[in-house]
């Protein structure tokens, strides 16, 4: 367990040094401040659009961070040659995969919660608020979604270079976000082969819509049923475990040679 936290800590330090998080945070803050500068007929206390756009920003920026951070962790160690001293220490390949995932996931979650805090702060400035119980639920579900994305990124990076892994992760997660929730409606008109393909997509790709509580947050629907939240969290944990298992399978016998690196 100590090895996992040490590996995770390296990821955090690297992320803090690279300053990507600050840049994304500043982008979101600029967007939110521009939004609250708008005077909508002097109506005041109109905060729905600020919440909506702020949370959309948190989702999009969290997604970008999760993919970009996770896909470069293992290839970076291999390129720098630091994978050799790492594996020479009593650190197994499974621990390396898990540690890199843990570091990527936790740092991205931290950044995403900062995005939530920024959105909440700007909403408060405008005279609105969020229901705290729903924020907790939404943040938990969002963290589960980021865990899945980070695990997918790590799994892809075991067999691809960072650019290819990032592109594939964006396509898979983008399709999951946008296409999978629409499949039941598309199946009303799609029959035959296209219908069968849609069903395969529906059952194979992750259902990220189950981690998205923005409707409850923005439109004050109140907290969701505890059973649904636990179910979605379990589903997220299961997906993460599957992707991490695939990552380990892809990495455990991978051969590195100093010649390739140089």
């Amino acid at each position, binding site marked *: 367990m100590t090895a996992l936290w040490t590996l995770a800590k390296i990821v955090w330090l690297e992320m803090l040094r690279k300053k990507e998080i600050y840049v994304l945070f500043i982008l979101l803050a600029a967007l939110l401040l521009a939004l609250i500068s708008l005077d909508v007929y002097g*109506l005041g206390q109109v905060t729905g*659009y600020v919440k909506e756009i702020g949370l959309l920003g948190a989702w999009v920026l969290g997604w970008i961070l999760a993919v970009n951070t996770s896909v470069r962790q293992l290839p970076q160690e291999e390129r720098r040659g630091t994978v050799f001293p790492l594996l020479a220490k009593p650190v197994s390949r499974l621990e390396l995969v898990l540690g890199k995932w843990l570091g990527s996931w936790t740092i991205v979650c931290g950044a995403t919660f900062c995005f939530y805090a920024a959105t909440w702060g700007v909403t408060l400035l405008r005279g609105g608020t969020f229901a705290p119980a729903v924020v907790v639920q939404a943040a938990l579900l969002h963290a589960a979604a980021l865990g899945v994305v980070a695990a997918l990124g790590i799994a892809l990076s075991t067999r691809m270079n960072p650019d290819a892994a990032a592109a594939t992760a964006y396509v898979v997660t983008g399709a999951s976000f946008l296409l999978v929730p629409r499949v039941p409606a598309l199946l009303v008109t799609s029959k035959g082969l296209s219908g069968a393909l849609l069903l395969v997509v529906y059952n194979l790709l992750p259902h990220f819509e189950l981690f998205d509580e923005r409707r409850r947050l923005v439109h004050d*629907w109140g907290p*969701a049923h505890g059973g649904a939240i636990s179910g979605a969290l379990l589903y997220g944990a299961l997906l993460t475990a599957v992707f991490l298992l695939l990552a380990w399978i892809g990495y455990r016998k991978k051969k590195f040679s100093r010649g390739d690196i140089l």
Partner: protein
Amino acid sequence: MTARFSTNAWPWFGVGAGWILAASLVCRLEAKLPPERPDEQGLAGLLLGSSRHALSADLFEKADVYFHKGVEHFERKAFTNDWFQRTLGDIAPATHRHAEGQETAEIIPWLEFATRADPHNVEAFLVTAFWLDTGLHRPDLAGRVLLEAERLNPRDYRVLLERGRFEIESGRFDPAAALLDAALSLWPGSLDPADRQSQLDKAEILTYRAFLFEFKGRNAEAIALFKNSLAIFPERTYLKARIAELEAGKEPEQSARSLLSRLVKRSPDIACKAGEEEEDRSESD
């Protein structure tokens, strides 16, 4: 393992702070700039080109979603009973509900964005005015929106019709008559004259104008306009009865004023007649 957190982030913070300041100033200054002319593209036009129409339509749709508390229009699904769909039903509720009272103010920014993206989206202006007037009880703001809509779309009869309706509601009948005459002269404008909505609008203009003639005791002109309106929608029996009463020289049972005030009166409830039908359909499915 020896990595340290670099504190050399101040230039980034400087850039960010400058950016935030610039963005805020742009938003403040934009409100103070002279309004764009109808033929000007504006910032949205320059940035987006023709795609601004699609963006505006999308933002207009977003306003409707906000009226329905974030729930999009009902869509038939091939299945709704698997674990994913049941869990999704709890995470993202899809019950048919409406924003009420001050909640309706949340609709307005999206309509404002829609009109900024495409200043010729007259429907967005009209819906903004409707919600400001009926939902938020701010007829002053609604009037301002309609004047802006007219300035940007001077040849669109729908704005004049809406302004005429507002004047009738406020009891200013002479300006209302002038606006309705102007609306009739511009009908159908760029719209298809055979379109049901433009037909409805024409019948509405004719009926309002006929009642305004009746106020003045000019029954012959009122009868002619009622007949024109009836020609468009022959099933409107109250018009038939009105024409018969006026032609017979009888004092109509209901005064023109009370009928007209009932006709122009609107409430937020009429905004979603289709919604309940959708709800019924989804339940029966």
